[in-house]
């Protein structure tokens, strides 16, 4: 019996968790696992889980079908597989940055060991790469041959067509001339000559068209790249970049290594020191002493140096999240007190209404520009500004390289995310139930206790509903702000891709689209959970 109740407890705990996190879809799965009305659960699973999955699969298939058929200036629209490929490529880029970073910081025995490891890797990879290159060459040759074979008849046809057309044109010219002569001798009318010329011009158009058709066919074959060739090229390219990456690692392990650089600086410092001892003239002494001090300084500077990471999609993602977090917190800190004030006092509400109404619809782009000017004035010298020095000295956040652009983006996010939170808070506070206020009156609660004991708890659900909207708005605004202010982040990632125009551009943009969407979804879920947690009405305000 106790076993039974224990299982029930686990079951309802799970169901509650699912409910609170907003993943109601998995409800029947849990119930099925615990064997509750299996038929009903299976039916629910088919209707609310399998059907959506099938639908999404249909969408993917449709995408896969339509994408290659739409040719754009920047190539075909990428298929799902290509986007997935872009994801793996971006992921390896991230991993490689990590490897280089750790290589840069290695020292002594570990470094030696790593060098050996990388060297053997380079050997194997290089042989692989040459093999792939050879394969590519053969495939390329065969493809070329095939292409030539396919082109030969067309080209023959084209030149034949051209010669016949040339002849026809010459013939028509002669005929026209003779016709003109006939006109002078009154053997033919001018009308006849005109009709002839009109006809011949029409014939010329037709001929041109025929030539164009064949020309197009030839161009198509020329542009065609067989799948096998494409794959071989990709494999060879990736092997080559892998080798390149390994060589770069070797560089970071040897001459580019931090510990070596430090040692070098220290060496020159000590050699300068011996020079100092043997120096005779005051000028020599001074010069040597200067060298010592400079090299010492350099050594200590290098010792603190971090590996200059190239920005990868995951780095951009973390930076975007950090920026949106700052913006969101800023918005909440401003919106909640003002919202409470507006909800409590109708005069305050009346005073702020014009401001809210006018600034709410302003585009984030305008806010960004304004903040760049206004907030930018606070950081004339960002590298040495104490705020950024402090931010960049923090353990994890320091790696995100906070700069003024980040602050501008965060301020823009805050400005746009402010309004939903403010309006909802004001609404929540002003719609506290009259009964609850009567309780406060009977208990003679002071303003502070009235706020903390009655008003704020009672308006929390609406407040959080507003914050949830704010976060969604903020995340959307952030991407645009980053693109415009070129603050490192997903927005800049998209923008850079668009500007770069590599073969991966389109896939990367679509990839960013999914990353942004999924993160937005996760942020929204987090807010739903928080909202449910503070809702006393069991989340009736949610949805």
């Amino acid at each position, binding site marked *: 019996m106790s076993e039974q109740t224990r299982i029930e407890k686990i079951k309802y705990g799970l169901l509650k968790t699912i409910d609170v996190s907003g993943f109601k879809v998995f409800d029947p799965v849990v119930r099925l696992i615990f064997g509750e009305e299996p038929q009903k659960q299976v039916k629910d699973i088919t209707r609310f889980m399998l059907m959506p999955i099938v639908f999404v699969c249909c969408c993917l298939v449709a995408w896969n079908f339509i994408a290659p058929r739409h040719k754009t200036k920047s190539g075909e629209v990428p298929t799902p597989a290509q986007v997935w490929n872009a994801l793996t490529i971006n992921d390896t880029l991230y991993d490689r940055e990590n490897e280089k970073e750790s290589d840069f910081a290695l020292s002594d025995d570990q470094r030696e060991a790593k060098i050996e490891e990388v060297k053997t890797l380079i050997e194997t990879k290089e042989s692989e790469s040459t093999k792939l290159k050879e394969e590519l060459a053969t495939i390329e040759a065969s493809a070329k041959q095939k292409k030539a074979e396919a082109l030969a008849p067309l080209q023959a046809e084209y030149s034949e067509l051209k010669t016949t057309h040339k002849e026809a044109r010459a013939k028509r010219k002669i005929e026209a001339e003779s016709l003109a002569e006939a006109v002078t001798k009154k053997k033919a009318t001018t009308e006849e000559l005109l009709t002839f010329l009109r006809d011949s011009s029409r014939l010329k158009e037709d001929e041109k068209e025929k030539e164009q058709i064949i020309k197009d066919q030839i161009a198509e074959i020329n542009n065609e790249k067989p799948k096998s060739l494409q794959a071989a090229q990709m494999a060879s390219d990736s092997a080559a970049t892998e080798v390149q990456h390994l060589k770069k690692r070797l560089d970071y392990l040897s001459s580019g290594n931090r510990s070596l650089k430090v040692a070098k600086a220290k060496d020159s410092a000590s050699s300068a020191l011996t020079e100092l001892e043997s120096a005779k003239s005051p000028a020599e002494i001074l010069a040597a002493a200067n060298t010592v001090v400079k090299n010492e300084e350099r050594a200590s500077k290098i010792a603190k140096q971090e590996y200059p990471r190239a920005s990868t999609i995951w780095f951009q993602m973390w930076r975007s999240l950090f920026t949106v977090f700052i913006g969101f917190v800023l918005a909440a800190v401003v919106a909640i007190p003002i919202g409470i004030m507006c909800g409590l006092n109708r005069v305050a509400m009346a005073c702020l209404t014009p401001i809210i109404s006018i600034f709410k619809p302003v585009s984030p782009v305008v806010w960004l520009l304004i903040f760049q000017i206004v907030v930018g004035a606070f950081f004339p010298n960002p590298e040495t500004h104490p705020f950024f020095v402090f931010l960049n000295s923090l353990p994890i956040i320091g790696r995100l390289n906070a700069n003024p652009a980040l602050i501008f983006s965060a301020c823009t996010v805050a400005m746009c995310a402010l309004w939903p939170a403010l309006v909802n808070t004001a609404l929540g506070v002003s719609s506290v139930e009259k009964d609850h206020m*009567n309780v406060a009156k009977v208990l003679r609660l002071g303003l502070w206790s009235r706020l903390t004991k009655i008003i704020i708890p009672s308006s929390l659900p609406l407040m959080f509903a507003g914050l949830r909207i704010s976060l969604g708005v903020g995340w959307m605004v952030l991407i645009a702000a980053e693109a415009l202010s070129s603050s490192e982040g997903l927005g800049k990632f998209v923008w850079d891709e668009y500007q770069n125009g590599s073969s991966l551009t389109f896939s990367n943009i679509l990839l960013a689209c999914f990353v942004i969407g999924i993160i937005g979804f996760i942020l929204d879920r987090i807010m739903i959970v928080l909202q449910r947690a503070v809702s006393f009405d069991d989340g009736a305000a949610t949805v």
Partner: protein
Amino acid sequence: MTTPAMEIDAVDIGFGPPGQRTEVLSDINLKVEKNEFVAIIGFSGSGKSTLMNLLAGIQPASSGEVRMNGTPVREPGPELGILFQNYSLLPWLSVYGNIDLAVKQVFPAKTAAERKDYIQRYIDMVSLSGSEWKKPSELSGGMRQRLSLARTLSMQPEVLLLDEPLSALDALTRANLQDEIIRIWEEDRRTVIMITNDVDEAVLMADRIIALTPGPKATLGKSFPVTLDRPRDRTTLNFNPEFIALRNEVTKYMIGINEEAKKLRVSADLPLPGLMPIDFNSHDRKPRVAQTSDLIAPGSQQVPEVEERELVGAADE
């Protein structure tokens, strides 16, 4: 002569701007002695809740004054413990938390341990032991009203104001809670003013029953002293001739004043549209065209909407 525990002196209450003013209560006079249990009985819509809010100090009087022990009541406070009809519990606090909020505010001098014992006593008093950490949404209607009662009592009010405390409950829970309130009151006597629309309830619980005439311009009517011995047992009371007589008397009086009110308002009755019976045999039933007689007669506009009048107990007749 001693000062009454609670006194209403010539109070009028009206709402709305001048010209369109609706007088809800007019010329209310009431004196309640210390430790007396007074029931005010009235029809729904006759301004009962306004009267209660007036007593609690939530609703100021347009003219006249409410006095407690001789001092005018100007604002609500813990000495005027009001038990709201819809519980007014704070849904984000537990049973304990709801009472704790009140106790902390009213008795700030109590230490944490004292407070804990004190709150537990009130939770036990209304038989909510074991539900201390439940939220109001997890309680039944009866339990919620018990909690509300415990919260009100924990403030140790001088006067207990019950605003139709049981009207949202089903008959069985209601009877149960009536007994509970009486039991608590008998253990710890204090002045009680209860508003109700249930004649049985009033007769069972009160020392004195006062009728509230139907609004607008509702006022207090006849007063009926209840001389039945306490403790009153509801099972035997039903056969008690005195109880039956009093119940019938009150009911008759209430119905009488309602008839009277209706007669007074006869001009306000809506004129019925002149409808011919539909001839179900003819097939071309045309849709009825609106006629001038459908409109409300001019002059009846000022009359407030006709409220549904109900009187529990009247059905016994």
